[in-house]
């Protein structure tokens, strides 16, 4: 993985010192809250419902065991012994004291981490495929380009005060596992006409109160021009994006107001005028950064492990976990393993310091020192030998972490909601828990098959409800938490925004409502049909009838 050089170390340490000074000036009264607020936000520090929340960047979701252990230590020493992995592959601590933040930032800097640009109207953490350099459908490692974008966008003088926040995702595989179509810029590495890899560039995707699926602005961009082209997109947005209305300030609004063709014309015109040599990275620098991402040396092993096969026969719990959480790897004899943070009864995406330390140990023992976070709020060990899977499983099982629900109904994406968040209108965590309880039986989940249920506690959509096959949105209706249901969303290659199915439901009804929707799907599906395929074939009518027919 990328290692800081002297410049990086000096830069991050200077920022820690700067923020230490800013906190001190706030506490002595030299800075008012109005003056301090934008400074703390630039360092990822929010004031939430119960306390300050610190959002830590995990660039493209990649962690070393040393970093994860440090996060565990921070959680234990300065928080309440747990953290929350977010849908942007970041980590949030919910109970950090202002007086401790500089020490926390210093501890992060020790392991080459920081909170810079995890808030504010700038380019945020660039997210990516959690199976980068492991998936067998990968064309090229997207992390190299994420890192290039990270370095380019950090404190970029022109793009540090955009009309609104800006999110970029990069995927290098055939299957989109980074929800690129729901980002301000989505980058897909594709094969070009001459057999060279380049980017298909999507722009204007996003969730929030006005959800849009990103549109293609360029079918094929030669790789060497990534920075200059993204630079032009951001410049056009920076100049033409709205600053008069917070709710209309994202690039998606501009793209859709102008239309993709006019927006493209503006970007291409800017790009033609750009001195590309001054912006694009020299080839040897790209190679230098790429060298940090050399995959681990994985000698080929037998593609079938007899002990694994036998355990799958004899242990149904293991068989379910294996089927859902162990994914094909491009090197024979290896797999990527998802460690689900969705144990029924617990807050989705939360991990205790003990869990973080355990996963760090497992990454060292079995995972070639790599850990990834994914946007569905789980952890991933991307490179595990099949021969080590049983030993890994037994440790996870003993720790209550062998939860075999990856991509199943129980693998809900869930924002912190009104339990933590200052913006939320309704709770999401207790609803997720009640749904998890209703569908606790893994055999039933297996019968249902893969199903993405996403929930947000407000219209800002941190819980990606728009892209859930089943989406749940909490709203406040005259002081009562009410939940709107959307159906048919997808974050993948067939990206779609879900459709509101009808009037909302009270909290206590939601698990039953999800049950009804699932039953309707199962009753209507043809053999092998996914939820989306059934939804697209039968439409809303049977679901509406099942949910509201008796009204």
């Amino acid at each position: 993985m990328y290692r800081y050089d002297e410049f990086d170390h000096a830069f991050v340490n200077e920022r820690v010192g700067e923020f230490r000074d800013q906190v001190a000036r706030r506490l002595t009264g030299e800075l008012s809250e109005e003056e301090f607020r934008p400074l703390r936000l630039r360092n990822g520090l929010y004031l939430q419902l119960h306390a300050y929340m610190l959002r830590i960047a995990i660039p493209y979701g990649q962690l070393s065991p040393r970093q994860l252990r440090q996060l565990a230590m921070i959680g234990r020493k300065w928080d309440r012994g747990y953290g929350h992995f977010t849908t942007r592959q970041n980590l949030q601590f919910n109970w950090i004291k202002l007086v401790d933040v500089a020490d926390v930032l210093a501890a992060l800097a020790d392991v080459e981490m920081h909170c810079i640009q995890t808030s504010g109207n700038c380019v945020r953490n660039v997210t990516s495929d959690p199976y980068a350099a492991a998936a067998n459908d990968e064309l090229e490692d997207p992390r190299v380009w994420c890192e290039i974008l990270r370095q380019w966008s950090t404190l970029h003088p022109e793009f540090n005060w955009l009309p609104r926040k800006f999110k970029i995702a990069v995927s290098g595989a055939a299957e989109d596992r980074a929800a690129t179509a729901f980002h301000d810029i989505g980058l897909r590495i594709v094969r070009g006409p001459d057999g060279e890899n380049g980017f298909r560039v999507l722009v204007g995707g996003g969730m929030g109160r006005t959800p849009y699926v990103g549109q293609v602005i360029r079918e094929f961009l030669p790789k060497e021009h990534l920075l200059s082209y993204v630079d032009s997109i951001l410049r056009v947005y920076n100049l033409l994006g709205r600053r008069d209305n917070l709710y209309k300030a994202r690039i998606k609004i501009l793209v859709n107001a102008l239309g993709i063709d006019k927006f493209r014309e503006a970007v291409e015109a800017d790009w033609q005028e750009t001195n590309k040599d001054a912006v694009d990275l020299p080839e040897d620098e790209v190679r230098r950064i790429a060298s940090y991402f050399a995959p681990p040396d994985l000698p080929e092993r037998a593609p079938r492990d007899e002990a694994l096969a036998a355990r799958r026969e004899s242990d149904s719990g293991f068989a379910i976990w294996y089927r859902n959480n162990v994914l094909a790897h491009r090197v024979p004899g290896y797999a990527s393993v998802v460690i689900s943070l969705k144990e029924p009864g617990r807050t989705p995406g939360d991990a205790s310091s003990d869990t973080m330390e355990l996963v760090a140990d497992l990454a060292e023992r079995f995972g070639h020192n790599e850990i990834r976070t994914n946007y569905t709020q789980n952890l991933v060990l991307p490179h595990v030998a099949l021969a080590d899977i049983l030993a890994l499983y037994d440790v996870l099982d003993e720790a209550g972490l062998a939860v075999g629900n990856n991509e199943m109904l129980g693998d809900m994406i869930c924002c912190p909601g009104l339990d933590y968040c200052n913006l939320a209108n309704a709770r999401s965590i207790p609803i997720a828990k009640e749904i998890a309880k209703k569908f606790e039986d893994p055999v039933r989940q297996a019968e249902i098959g893969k199903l993405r249920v996403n929930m947000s506690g407000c219209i800002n959509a941190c819980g990606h409800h728009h892209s859930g096959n089943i989406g749940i949105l909490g709203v406040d209706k005259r002081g009562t938490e009410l939940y709107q249901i959307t159906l048919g969303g997808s974050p993948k290659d067939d990206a779609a925004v879900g459709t509101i199915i009808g009037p909302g439901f009270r909290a206590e009804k939601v698990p039953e409502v999800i049950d009804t929707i699932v039953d309707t799907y199962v009753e209507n599906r043809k053999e092998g049909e996914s939820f989306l395929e059934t939804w697209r074939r039968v439409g809303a009518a049977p679901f509406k009838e099942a949910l509201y027919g008796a009204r």
Partner: protein
Amino acid sequence: MPSVVTANRLNDGIVVYLAPDRTWTEDIVAAARAENEDEVKELEATAAEAVRERLVISVYPIPIEVKEDGTVDPISVRERIRASHRTTLTKDWYDVPL
């Protein structure tokens, strides 16, 4: 409807309420209660001073209901969650009806 004034403590962000002795308490039951608009304004003026003294930030009044047994319940769900100083992570919160 009676009100109390809430805020977050500056140095650690924890939810607090203005008490009758002008200190800040984490316990909503111990908060100073305003019975009318004038009393709310008085509490807000005291709170504004605490903001200037850098004790608290994000100050605002919230309506409450005082129950027969003397316990206090904020009217809104949001404020009930704030007053509880805890979240659904706690296992015993799990079985509280939604």
